[in-house]
Each structure stands twice: as C-alpha cells, then as structure tokens.
C-alpha cells in the first residue's frame, strides 16, 4: 500500500472521528479551575499559623522579587513565600493559564486584566484597598481597574502596581559633545536638528530596534504630542469608538517615515533586535536610543558618565514632554488563591517605603511619592524625568498593550513596513486599527 492510499484512509478516518468527537463532546474549556477554596473574610490579621504563600512572576524580576520576599518574611515571620518565575519571553503567554489553574499561585503578576476579569480568575481588591488605605496615583491604577465584564479603565481594582516602567530617550553625551550638542533637546524640532548633525558627521542618529517593535516608544510620544494623552489612553483602554485612524496618529507616522527616509535610524533597523541595539549603544555607536527605564542598569554599566536620559520632548519647547508608563508587576490575587489575606498583605507590603526603596535599588522607578535616590546616576535622571511627568500628568499606558496581540501582529510588522517605506502612513494606522478591531469585542 502506498503512503498516498494510507493518507487518504487516514484523512477520512480522522475526519469521521473528529465529527463524532465534536458531536459527542461539549465546547472546550471552562471545565477546569475552582478548587476547594475556603472563603475568608478580608482581614489584616494573619494570625500566627504557619502559611506558605506562593507567588508567580516573570524571570526578569526575580532578583527584585526575592529582595521583596526577604523583607516581607522578616515582617511576617509566620509566612514563607515560595516564588516561581517563568522566562520573560513566555510569561505573557503563560500568565492567563497560570492564574486560572486550580492550583494557581496565591499572588501573581496579572498579565492580561481583560481576560482575567472576564473569566473571573482574579478577585476584586476593593475591600483590601479600603482596609489598608492604599493611596496609589490614579494615573497608575486606571489600567488595572475593570468592570465585571473585563472592560478596563474604570470599576473595581484588580491589580496593584509595585513600581513603574517608563519610556524615554537615552543619549550618549560624549558623542553629543563631539557634535557640539551640550543639552538635551527640548522639542521635536531640536531633536531633529541634533539628528541631522549626527547624520552629517556619519554617526547613527537614532539606534532603532524595529525587529522587535522598538519604534513604538518614540512614535507614541509623537502621537501624544499631536493628539493629547486622552485619545491614546482611550484607545489603549479599548473605549468603544476609539481609533488610531486619526489625523494626529497619521502625522506621527509621517514623521517616523520621514526620519527613516532621511537615514536617521540604524541602517538595518528592521532586522535589529533590542539586545543588539543595546550593545551598539553601549559601544558608543549612536547618539540617541529610544527605550525605557528597564535598561537603566545596563546602560549605566555600559556608558557610565556618558549616559544620559530625558523624557520625550513636546512638539515645541512650551509643550510638556510625555512618556508611556505602567507597572513593573501588576500584582493581583487569583480567585483560586488559598491565602487571600496573606496575599493582600504581600501586595500592601510592596507599597511600603521599604519595598519602594528596594524597587529603586533594582532600577525601577517607585510608584509611591517619596525622595527616592539611587546610586545609579542614569536612574536618578529617570526618576527626575518621572517626577516632572507625574507633575505634568502626561503619561499614557503602552500602545503595545492595547490588545493581547497588538505587539506581535500590529506594532512589529507595521512599523517595519512604515520604516522600509512599503506602507504609507495612512495605511499604517489603518492596519493597526484593523488589528485592534479584530481583538476588541
């Protein structure tokens, strides 16, 4: 018998079986979860009984989390925290499964608030917020509030950010000095003038890792300049009727394409990944590097005193700068958590002065107000920029997080075609909006 005949038989047999399966069984999913969780009334009192609290997060945050855990265990001697950290490149994908499993962790990073709330996999933290009197800046909790059907932006609080990640522009002050640039640009116009100087001197004006969507940070700043932060935030929060297909967004895309055509980005931007881009910037191979607070330690190590950081400037010198900013880890309590009170105590602890200083020590801007200082001069510049932006109240969430697949299927491919010139700015925003429409229900 030939393979072809085998395959024919196999295909027909399999289709028949599949048909039977589909008729016999009910819809997939929805059968797991809800272990025997005893309900406990919200309380600050954790008693003296020995408790093992389980925690889940991404691997990049392990050392910060371990310091948090150590300090937390010192404060609550009867609680032991057992952490699990998934590799960062899969934590976003594993997140929804981890928090919905029957043996879910007691406290976990909530990677997708919408599906977590819609599926009732996390509990509302309102009672604990009142109990502990959490006073977190509204601009930082709005992304973690949701209505009971998973609409983010208003409603109960479902996760609490422990620290802030924020975008901004790194620059090499030594290279700048060689070009005669003495201070950071205060407007997009000044930024363009500086990039032209670099280009004419044969230095890469802006290192651009577009293989992984690194263009979105500076684009988002331009869009915020053009259209104001509410338009951007509404779109990220999936408010109905929101669209990126609007004038300010097209103008921002035109600017990006103009810069690409002028040769202001790395010549191989579309094939350049974030790690390689960081390596090049640390070797002094460029003037600007649009990125975020997460690289503060590596850039401090790489460039030392030559490293600088500033917030993305406004279109003109009198317009306030802006940044995309959200939680380093939005901690929430899965519905199947067995120690909800202890989990809430841990979340409360992350907001304490002691924990916030630990965040700064690990290179993450604190979320609570305070006179935080770091021995990393680059981070101090970030903290300074952050407090300015918080005062100006001009931060947005990341457009990359607007939908679950926005980064992979919207941002990355479409910025690549915008940069290589094969897609016009107007089509660019339409393509991004198409991805948004396909996922927002």
């Amino acid at each position, binding site marked *: 018998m*030939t*393979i*072809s*005949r085998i*395959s*024919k038989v*196999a*295909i027909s047999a*399999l*289709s028949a*079986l*599949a048909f039977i*399966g*589909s008729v016999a*069984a009910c*819809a*997939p*999913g*929805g059968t797991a979860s809800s272990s025997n969780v005893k309900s406990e009334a919200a309380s600050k009192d954790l008693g003296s009984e020995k408790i093992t609290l389980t925690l889940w997060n991404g691997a990049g945050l392990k050392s910060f989390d371990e310091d948090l855990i150590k300090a937390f265990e010192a404060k609550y001697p009867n609680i032991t925290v057992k952490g699990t950290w998934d590799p960062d490149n*899969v934590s*976003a*994908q594993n997140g*929804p*499964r981890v928090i*919905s499993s029957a043996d879910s962790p007691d406290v976990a990073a909530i990677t997708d608030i919408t*599906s977590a709330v*819609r*599926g009732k*996999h996390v509990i509302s933290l309102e009672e604990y917020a009142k109990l502990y009197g959490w006073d977190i800046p509204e601009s930082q909790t709005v992304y973690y509030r949701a209505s009971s059907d998973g609409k983010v932006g208003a409603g109960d609080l479902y996760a609490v950010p422990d620290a802030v990640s924020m975008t901004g522009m790194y620059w090499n002050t030594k290279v700048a000095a060689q070009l005669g640039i003495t201070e950071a640009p205060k407007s997009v116009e000044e930024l363009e003038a500086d990039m032209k100087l670099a280009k004419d001197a044969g230095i890469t004006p802006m290192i651009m890792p577009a*293989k*992984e969507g690194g263009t979105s940070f500076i684009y988002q700043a331009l869009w915020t300049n053009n259209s104001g932060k509410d338009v951007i935030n509404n779109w990220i929060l999936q408010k109905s009727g929101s669209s990126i297909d609007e004038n300010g967004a097209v103008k921002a895309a035109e600017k990006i394409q103009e810069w690409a055509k002028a040769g202001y980005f790395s*010549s*191989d*931007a*579309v*094939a*350049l990944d974030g790690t390689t881009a960081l390596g090049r910037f640390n070797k002094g191979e460029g003037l600007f590097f649009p990125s975020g607070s997460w690289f503060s330690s590596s850039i401090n190590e790489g460039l030392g005193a030559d490293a600088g950081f500033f917030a993305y400037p406004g279109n003109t010198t009198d317009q306030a700068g802006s940044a995309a900013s959200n939680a380093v880890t939005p901690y929430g309590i899965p519905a199947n958590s067995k120690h909800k009170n202890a989990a809430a105590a841990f979340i409360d602890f992350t907001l304490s002065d002691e924990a916030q200083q630990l965040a700064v020590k690990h290179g993450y801007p604190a979320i609570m107000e305070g006179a935080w200082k770091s021995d990393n001069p680059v981070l101090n510049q970030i903290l300074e920029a952050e407090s300015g932006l918080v005062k100006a109240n001009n931060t947005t969430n990341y457009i990359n997080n607007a939908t*679950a*697949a926005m*980064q*992979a*299927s919207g941002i*990355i*491919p*479409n910025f*690549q*075609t915008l940069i*290589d010139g*094969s*897609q016009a700015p107007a089509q660019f925003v339409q393509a991004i909006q198409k991805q948004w429409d396909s*996922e927002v229900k």
Partner: protein
Amino acid sequence: MKQRRVRPRLLMVSLLFLLPAFLFYAVFVLWPIIQTMWYSLYDWNGIDVATWVGLGNYVQIFTDSNLYGSILHSFFLIIFFSIMPIIVGLIVAVLIKDIKLKSVSSFVQVCLFLPRVIPGAAAGVAWTWMLADHGAINQILRSLGLGQFTHVWLGEQSVALGAVGIIGFWLQLGFCIVLLLSGIGGIDASLYEAASLDGAGWWRQLFAITLPGLRGQIGVCLTLTIVSALASFDIVYMSTQGGPGTSTMVPGVQVYRLAFTQQSVGLASALAVTLMVLVLLVVGPLQSLVNKKED
C-alpha cells in the same frame, strides 16, 4: 502480490501484538490531531468556555491575506529547502563518489553533514549575525568588490524570504548528500564500467545510471525536506519572527502566535489542520509517483 487468506485466530493474535503500539499512537498522535480538528470549529481563548463557529475559522484563513499568505510563503520555501539541496546534493554526492582517497571523502562528508547536527534555532541565530548589515555575507561581498549587491538580508522585504531559505538550504544540504551517497553506494559498479566502455561520459552516466538508481533516495529526500519547508518554525522564528512586515511569515510561526499571543486557539487550530492537509496533499502523490515502478 497474491492475496492469502489469514486465519481468524492468527489475525486476533497479531492484532493483540499491535495493541500496545497502537494505544501509544492513538493517545499521543491521533487524539491530539482529533482535538485540534475539534478546536478548529470553535472561537476559543484557550481558557474560558468556547463558542461554536463551525467552519468560520477556515473561511477566515482563505480570505485573510496574512493567513493564506503565510501558506504561500511556505510553498516558496520548498525551492530552498527541497529542490536546491537535492540538485546540489546530487552533484556533490557524485563528485564525492569519484574521490579515490577514503579519508578525504569521509572528511568531506563529515564537513557537509555538520550543519544537520546543529539545531535549526541555533542556526537561525548564527545566520542572523552573518546576514546582518555588517555581517559575514556582506563583508565577503564587499571584499570581492561586489558592494552593490549587499543587502540587509533579513531586513528587506524583497530578499528576506530568500535569505531565510538559504538558511534552510544550508541545513538540508548535508542530509541530502549523505542519503544520496548511501544510495550511490548501492548502485552496481559494473554498470558504470559498462557505460564507460560504451563511451558514456560523466553527464550521460549521471542521467542514465545514477539518477534512476537513486529514485528511492530522492523520494525520501523530497518528502522529508518538503515537510520541513511547509512546517518550518525554528529558523523563521529565530531569524525574522515573520518580518519585515509579514514577508517571511510561515504557518508554523503564525499558529504559535495565534494560539499563544492572540489567544485565538480555534483559528490557530484551523490553520494547523489546513497545513496538515496541504502537507498530505503534496507528499501523498509524491510518494506514489516515486514508488510507482517498485510496486
């Protein structure tokens, strides 16, 4: 072949012997395939209750250019993963056969087979560096005075899929050579002697003796390399992730992205099933073509 009647008792016993293997096959191969087919009829995020959509996911695959485009890309990759390695492999294998020194020929074989030992993911990373703007490939071109032919190979839509294909070619070549060599070893040497005496040259021998003698091996090479082209994942995922734009997107990467990033398990399953059917449709007829005379 004559049909022989099998005694019922013997049939029962043989089936019993088959049972353990069949159970494993059913649980680890058939059942996942059936489940995938079942999922493909639903709109499901992988966690919560799914909604029945019938053939809706399949309709989307054949109407969304990003989805059917990825299938077309994988067919284009057949040129690089399959046709080129077999043609080059055949020529190299015949040349190696003519090497008289055993040690030299084994050395050459080991060298050419080495890429096959390297995992596709690792090859993807290494080639990403070589194909970069200042990578080895462009450096070689520039040093040969061919600077006008340099590209950011993985960053330009016009050449990216071909560049990914070259990585595949490099990985598949060694396998084809080794397999074809073993086939050549099985061809009766007296045939070549007789042909030489009759005045047949190198090319004549290749087409009259070697090629027909390698029918089976070429069939195996074609089957395995075509499957690896259509189901490619690791090379593309490591080198381009489907970019620039969607110019190198293949179904393997698309399925992964749909299922785990976009949480569209139903659509991902439908694409996987479509891919499986396409692979069978291509490989099935190919097998019967190659095996026709031996039946």
